[in-house]
């Protein structure tokens, strides 16, 4: 087996109500240093983590949503979002933050990190991983 494994971080919970979204992100940031093949999945209420305009002053918690925009700097560039989960919640891709990365293999062109895929495609993504961490 090669030393590089496929890691998928699965996010199914809303932000702020519980700490899982925040502590999931902390694992992703640390994990980035290990040069594995990393992707994030957002489905069910996990899609709420990526919404625009989060403003947490009124509840006194830390707003960690800007961190998603920094993931590209850590070479974490694939954020799969499930289309059906968005639709069930009355959301569209326009409700999500714009998250970009610079593709070093394509003359540092700016490209979107978020990739909206169907439920069936999400199942395919999950089925090709070596390690799945669920939050």
């Amino acid at each position, binding site marked *: 087996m090669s030393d590089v494994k496929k890691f998928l971080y699965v996010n199914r919970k809303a932000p*702020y*109500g*519980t*700490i899982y979204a925040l502590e999931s992100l902390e694992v992703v940031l640390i994990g980035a240093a290990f040069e594995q093949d990393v992707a994030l999945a957002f489905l069910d209420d996990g899609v709420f983590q990526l919404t625009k305009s989060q403003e947490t002053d009124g*509840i*006194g*918690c*830390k707003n960690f949503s800007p961190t998603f925009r920094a993931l590209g700097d850590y070479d974490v560039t694939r954020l799969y979002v499930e289309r059906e989960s968005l639709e069930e919640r009355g959301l569209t891709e326009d409700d999500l933050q714009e998250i970009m990365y610079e593709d070093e293999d394509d003359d540092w062109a700016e490209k979107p990190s978020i990739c909206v895929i169907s439920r069936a495609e999400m199942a395919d993504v999950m089925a090709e991983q070596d390690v799945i961490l669920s939050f």
Partner: protein
Amino acid sequence: MKIGVLVSEGPYTHEAVDSAYNFVKAALAAGHEVPRVFFYHDGVNVSTRLSVPPQDERNIQENWTNLAKEHGVDLVVCIAAAQRRGILDKNEAERQGKDADNIAEGFRISGLGQLIELGIQADRLVTFGD
């Protein structure tokens, strides 16, 4: 009005503790009395003085300790729930033969009777949990 509060989840893990804190502040600001906040289930973990949250985050225990100091709110940690989860004051630590305690200033450990009493004496009881 007398409003009692029950907190049933742990700090940082669940927003319940934050909601309770914001609620109590608003109730006091509106001139109501909050005679007691009772911490049950994982809520007892709010009272550890050993927590070291990141510098850019709120310090939940300190916020409650300050609230108790400023407004005389009685912060009661359930003894049965606390013992299971490793929250002890000096007396309990000695009684149980433990070499350390970890409860913070402003909190006191007592029995579940304090929750029932709160339910009896308060005009309203509001629960924050999971």
